[in-house]
Structures are given as structure tokens and as C-alpha cells.
């Protein structure tokens, strides 16, 4: 494990890998929503998988092994499999014929702009550490769990309740259809 940590601690290869993964993330993310070659929803979903995998590559370069593994496990392994499951049950031809609507385009660009400005504000006000904390990545899973259940208990519980609400909502909606 120390050897792997050493291997990705700084150096030209790490920098190069960062640019490769960052470029892949952005490129694949773009191809999810605006693929000039195919309007096929399955292709979009597969590019989403690639985006997530390259993002977990970025996490790896930050020594966040736990986050990288969970990213792949939850998003690439479960969420998008469900997407594909649903896509395969739909009529894809109709989706491929659909035109881009201007209202959708406008709303999309607006929300992207808002998120982007929030990012800029956050990043410009953040104080970047000049040095990586020493040995912060030993037992990171333990440290993460401990922080979640001590300092950040309230946000953690609120997110859990949010998920529960979504779950109950889905059950209610699908029950109503049946009756």
C-alpha cells in the first residue's frame, strides 16, 4: 500500500495522469449530453460510465481510495445499470427522433451558468494548502467514517432523511399507478 501511495505522490507521471483523467472527464461528460455522432440514449449512458470512471481516477490521484472505489461501486455499478435497464425497456426510436427544444437549452445553460459561478466563488475564496498533510491517507476510511459520525452528523442524517423521502415518494407513485 505504501508503495502505491509513493507511486502516485507527485512527479511528472502523476501530473500527466491528472491531465489525462481531467480531459477524459470533461470530454466524456460533454459526449453524454451532446454527442454529434449518435443520439442513442445507451451511448450517452455508456459515456456517463466513462465520465464516472475517469472521475474516480482523479480521486485516486488525490489518494482518496475509498471515494474512488465507492464512486465506481455506486454510480458506475448500480445507478447507471438501472438507467440502462430503464432505457432498454423504452422505445428508443422516439427518443432518437426528438429535437432539441430551445426552452430546454436555455434552462440548461442557465443552470450550468449558476453552478459555474458558485464554483468560481468557492474556488476563489478557498485557501489552498501548500503542502499535502503528512500520512493523512493511512486509514482514510476510518477517518472519513469518524468525521461523518462526529463533526458532520446533522448533515449526514439530513441527507439520509432526504433519501428516505425520495424512496417513500417512489413507492407511493408506483402504487398509485397500479390501483
Amino acid at each position, binding site marked *: 500500500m505504501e*508503495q502505491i501511495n509513493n507511486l502516485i505522490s507527485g512527479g511528472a507521471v502523476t501530473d500527466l495522469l491528472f491531465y489525462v483523467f481531467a480531459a477524459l472527464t470533461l470530454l466524456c461528460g460533454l459526449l453524454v449530453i451532446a454527442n454529434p455522432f449518435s443520439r442513442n440514449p445507451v451511448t450517452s449512458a455508456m459515456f456517463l460510465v466513462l465520465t464516472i470512471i475517469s472521475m474516480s481516477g482523479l480521486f485516486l490521484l488525490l489518494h482518496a481510495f475509498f471515494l*474512488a472505489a465507492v464512486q*465506481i*461501486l455506486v454510480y458506475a455499478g448500480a445507478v447507471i*445499470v438501472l438507467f440502462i435497464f430503464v432505457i432498454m425497456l423504452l422505445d428508443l426510436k422516439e427518443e432518437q427522433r426528438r429535437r432539441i427544444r430551445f426552452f430546454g437549452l436555455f434552462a440548461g445553460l442557465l443552470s450550468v451558468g449558476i453552478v459555474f459561478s458558485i464554483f468560481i466563488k468557492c474556488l476563489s475564496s478557498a485557501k489552498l494548502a501548500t503542502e499535502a498533510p503528512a500520512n493523512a491517507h493511512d486509514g482514510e476510511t476510518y477517518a472519513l467514517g469518524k468525521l461523518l459520525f462526529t463533526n458532520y452528523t446533522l448533515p449526514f442524517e439530513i441527507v439520509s432523511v432526504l433519501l428516505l423521502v425520495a424512496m417513500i415518494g417512489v413507492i407511493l407513485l408506483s402504487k398509485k399507478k397500479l390501483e
Partner: protein
Amino acid sequence: MDFIPQSIQSWYFGLTPDGKMVLWSLVKIAIVIGVVQGIVMYSVLAERKISAWIQDRVGPNRTAPPFVKFIPVLGPFLTRLGIFQPLADGLKFLIKEDFTPAGVKKIYFFLAPALAVIPAMLTVAVIPFGSMIGDQKMVIADLNVGILYTFGIVSMGVYGIVLAGYAANSKYPMFGGIRSSAQMISYEISMGMSIIPVLLIVGKLNLSQIIGWQAANGWLVVYAPVSFIIFMVASFAETNRTPFDLPEAETELVGGYHTEYGSMKFALFFLAEYSNMVSSSAMMVTLFFGGWTLPFWGLDHAATSVGMGIAHVLVFLAKMLFFMVVFIWVRWMFPRFRYDQLMDLGWRRFLPLALVNILATAVWLWLKSAN
């Protein structure tokens, strides 16, 4: 070390630690992939032989290269065992016509077999198949999140199957693909939940450390038997083996997701299935049966000599092959589940059972720490 030329020796000792690690990792990857392929080849033979014995047949007993019959006693014996059958099978896959049916989605049709094989090969990277030989740890990547890595990679395996079903432009593969995606989700959740008691007991996600804990305290199958049962059943579902081989149920779906595939592309799906069996068996051995350790003959601590290191690898292989045989045996002894039964078992039996198991283990650990 005298037989190694001076130039290579000086090159090796001149490498940085990073360089040495990369070199040894490449060597280990080559060996592990080779061994896994070998096991896959001969587990296909084992499958045919064991099924033959269960059904009171003989199994493959003819195939042999022409010169073998001139070897007295040994030659006919090996032929009867079917030792040469996998070579003939492999050759057949290679020289068959690589047929692409009309109307398939070309890119996905080519991509799907590769996407099935790659995760199957990647899973073995974190499994410690031995302790030490020389100063090398017998594991390719000793990750601190080894278990999560395996689960993540295994869950990627479903894309190969789903895309194969989608690309084939045919009804039966499509059904196979849809079934597979639903089945994988259902069983992955139970599988993930089933190992949480193991993590609670050991307190580490690193597979080497889990084995170390088992060497000190005894095999985890004793501490978490329910976990083991759920994990084993879920791994049958994850590898698409009977009684959960719904995605390729030949009586209903012709050949399931690989109906339209032939030649080497079909062989890749086959390879993926058996590699998944290998890695599932390896995971069961690592998580529940002490990995490369044995409680006697001093095999329960990291090896100090090369001989002991090799003995550990052999112990691991023996345990793993036992589970491979269980996989094969179950396939020929039990009927296939119906699709609704499979879903019912996954969501309404195993998931609650796994949750109760987590709670019970947590309470037990809490009481133990309170004393």
C-alpha cells in the same frame, strides 16, 4: 544469482523503488493472468467431466494429438482423462468463422465481449494469493480498500452482458440483457450487505489484513456463517451460474445474451464467466476461509523461506479449487430458479436477512466490548 548476466543485475539494482515496484507488478500480473487462464481452461474440462460423472456418462475421453498413443500406459490414461480436450476446444474457437449477423450495432457488438472479460480479469488484482516469496508480497495491489475495489469491478461486469444483449438486435439476447441487469442489482445489494459483519468484526477493508486477523483468531466462517451463506448464493447469481443462470437460460432464451455470438467472441464470454468463478472462489477463500493460511504446520504466519511461500500459494490454490468444484457441482445438481423466485429471494429474503445479520453482529460486538 550467478546465472543472471551482469548487465541485467546492475540494471535491476540501479532501478528506483518505484521502478522495481512497477517491474515486479508486471511480472506478477503476467503470472496471475496466465495461471487464471490455465485454471479457466481446465475448469471447463472439469465441468464436462463432473457433469458426465453426475449423469453417469464418461465425458471427453478421445481427443489427443497423434503422437500420444505411442506413449505406453500414460498416453491412453491422459487421453481418457481428457487432458488434451481444452487445447482442441481453444483451437476450435480460434479457427471458426467470426460471423457478424446483419443488423447488429457494430460498435457495441465488438465492445461487449471485451467489456465482459476486462472486469473479470481485473478482480484478481487485489486478492492475496500467498504471503511472501523473497521480499515480494504475493498480491498485485495491496489496496487499503481491497473489498470495495472488488465489488466495484465485479459490478462493472454487467455492462458486457447488457450491451451484448442490446447490440445483437434480436429478441432473446435482449431479454437476457434485461434479466441480467435486474439480477445483478438485486444480488449486489445483498452481497454488499452480507460482508458488512465481516468488516465490523475485523475493522479493516484490506484483504491482507483480513487474512492476518483470521490467522490470529480463526476463520471468519465461524464468526459470520450467515454472511458466508448469503455471499455464496449471491456470487452464484453474480457469475450467472445455475441455479441463477437466467440471462442465458437455454430452454427459454436459446442462448441468452450470447445467442448471436460465435467463434472467439463467444469464447470471451465463456472466459469471463469462468474467470468470474475463479475470482468469486478466491474472494470466498479470502474473506471466510483464511486465505493462504492453515491453522497447523506453522502455515499461519507470513513465510520466511521460499518453500513456505510456495506452500502458501498452493494452500490458497487448493482452497480455491475446492470452491470451483462446488460451483460446478451445484450447476449439475440443482434446477434453475424461475425469474420471479430469483427476484423474491434477492429482495425479500436475503436483503432483510443480511440487515438482521448486521444488527446482530453489531450487538454481539457491542456486548463483547462492554464486558
